[in-house]
């Protein structure tokens, strides 16, 4: 049998930005799914979003409410979400209360009530909220596990046969996954987690099981706003782009002598780390890199965390660079990303969306310390991993990234980054202070270039009113990288005849 003979499973849109990508394209049609998690995790909102995205008068959605949140309150609160379309109520979406059947009758009656409504309305989507309350009621009545399993199997079989995509909502803890008949029968198991870490709420979701298609594994951050749930896939919307760019050009930094040191500039698609202590001109160098790109007609993005876009543009203006004009004509975006409890995946998503929208070729992240500080404490553990994925994803599509990082000046060693992310960088430019002749002077060096050869010189530079200007190689000293060099002894002359 070749692939053309296989059954084609249509995928339904979830209506949740980012979730379709996590699911591998959408929800498998006619699947029988569980949405699980603790109270307040967003389960009902997720189900509503799916329902409103798919229900039509021809294939309506049936939303059975049981002993959980009363429909009266649920509808009142859910109406506050932007996706809630009043016009669909009672036509494309029907709410049916099953509480009395569950309370007063047995599982057979519950199944019969659901089947009756399904056969009468021909729904495309069926939701039972909360299915856990049905299970609890049955278990408290002393029903055998086999009875419950039989009920779930009959329910799943009937709803699938009637071509409905089903969602059972339940308050479960992870420990219940094992040996639970509900989870065994389910085609899809979507788990919503939330926990409070210091002052921030961290929400994550996981597709624990999904038959018939490959979903993106692992935990994905999500947020609940007035628009409903929004998921931030760990792939950042850049799946299926494994091939690295074949562009072998080098980009000018806007500093001619630095370009020479870089053997012609920064290779397209490289990730460059500019590391140095405070005041060494990292942001100035980044600004010149962006300005040079704009001058050459390349769109650019700057993600700033420590100063506002206006301040950034004003500083560029003081260096003779017109960032305000570039923002107006759309070739430059300065993103200020500093809300509280920001997740790293949300931040990265914003950057990537902007890069894609602008078709940007150059990206500056200024700075890593500011980026990390803008994140909710609970997300900081994900920082390196997310950064790694973002840099990998963007550089593969040919974006050249320059990241600044502040390092504490040590006079005994040459640090590249306190974040241990130098392995993420193709190229490292190190700026540092040195004490020479009673003056604090600045030197720069190319520490690493993955793309090949580079200058080995340690060169002095100055931050001038027009930007960084690289001076000559510092000769006659040894120990420059320590910051406290000594005058090197003169090279030995020709040996005198004995």
């Amino acid at each position: 049998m070749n692939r053309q003979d296989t059954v084609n499973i249509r995928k339904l849109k979830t209506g949740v930005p980012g979730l379709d990508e996590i699911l591998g394209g959408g929800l498998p049609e006619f699947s029988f799914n569980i949405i699980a998690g603790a109270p307040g995790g967003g389960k009902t909102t997720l189900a509503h979003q799916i329902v409103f995205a798919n229900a039509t008068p021809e294939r309506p959605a049936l939303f059975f409410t049981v002993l959980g949140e009363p429909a009266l309150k649920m509808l009142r609160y859910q109406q506050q979400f932007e996706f809630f379309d009043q016009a669909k109520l009672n036509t494309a979406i029907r709410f049916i209360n099953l509480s009395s059947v569950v309370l007063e009758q047995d599982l057979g009656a519950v199944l019969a009530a659901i089947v009756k409504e399904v056969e009468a309305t021909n729904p495309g989507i069926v939701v039972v909220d909360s299915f856990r309350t049905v299970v609890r009621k049955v278990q408290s009545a002393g029903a055998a596990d086999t009875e419950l399993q039989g009920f779930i199997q009959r329910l799943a079989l009937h709803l699938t046969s009637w071509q409905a995509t089903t969602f059972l909502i339940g308050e479960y803890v992870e420990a219940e996954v094992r040996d639970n008949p509900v989870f065994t029968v389910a085609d899809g198991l979507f788990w919503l987690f939330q926990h409070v870490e210091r002052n921030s709420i961290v929400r994550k979701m996981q597709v624990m099981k999904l038959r018939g298609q490959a979903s993106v594994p692992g935990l994905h951050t999500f947020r609940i706003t007035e628009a409903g749930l929004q998921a931030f896939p760990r792939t950042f919307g850049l799946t299926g782009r494994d091939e690295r760019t074949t562009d072998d050009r080098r980009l000018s930094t806007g500093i001619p002598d630095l370009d020479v040191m870089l053997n012609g500039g920064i290779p397209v698609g490289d990730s460059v780390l500019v590391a140095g202590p405070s005041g060494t001109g990292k942001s100035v160098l980044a600004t010149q890199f962006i300005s040079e790109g704009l001058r050459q007609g390349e769109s650019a993005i700057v993600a700033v965390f420590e100063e506002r876009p206006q301040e950034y543009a004003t500083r560029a203006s003081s260096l003779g660079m017109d960032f305000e004009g570039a923002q107006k004509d759309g070739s430059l975006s300065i993103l200020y990303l500093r809300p509280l409890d920001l997740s790293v995946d949300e931040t990265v998503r914003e950057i990537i969306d902007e890069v894609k929208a602008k078709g940007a070729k150059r990206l500056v992240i200024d700075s890593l310390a500011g980026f990390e500080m803008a994140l909710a404490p609970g997300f900081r553990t994900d920082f390196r991993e997310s950064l790694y994925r973002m840099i990998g994803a963007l550089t593969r599509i040919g974006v050249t990234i320059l990241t600044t990082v502040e390092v504490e000046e040590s006079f005994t060693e040459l640090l590249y980054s306190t974040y241990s992310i130098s392995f993420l960088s193709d190229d490292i430019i190190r700026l540092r202070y040195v004490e020479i002749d009673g003056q604090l002077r600045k030197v720069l060096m190319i520490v690493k270039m993955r793309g090949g050869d580079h200058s080995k010189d340690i060169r002095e530079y100055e931050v001038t009113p027009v930007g960084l200007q690289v001076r000559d190689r510092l000769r006659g000293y040894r120990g420059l990288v320590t910051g406290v060099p000594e005058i090197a002894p003169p090279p030995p002359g020709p040996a005198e005849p004995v």
Partner: protein
Amino acid sequence: MSTSPSAIHALARLLISEAAAQSEAPGTDPNPTARACARLATPLIKLVGETGFASLLSRALSIAKRQAPLLEALHVQPNGSLTGFPQTPVDTTASTLDAGTILVSELLGLLGMFVGESLTLSLVREVCPSAWSNADVPSTKESL
């Protein structure tokens, strides 16, 4: 919700007047207010359950009693039915029908406050199709 009391009142009056004009069926309460509430009970119990409907109706009755002392004798049963009407003869005087209209208005107002005007109108029209053609009742696209 941009509730218009006059629109809700018109809808309630329509339900009560239709209930008053309805011929008596054996086993049903002959009182127009009881009939109108029983008519609404069908879709509302399906939506919010028996307990939910009984809670809404008892709250509506409590508010309505302040405006219409004629309703003082009425009670809401756990299944959502109204009791306490005088047995015979059925009172269809204007003041009694007005009191019933006040009760139904309060019920619809409460419902609209919780589930929204669009769903409220849609549920009422399910049991009272003539509401579609009644000039005093807004269409679903208009606010109540």
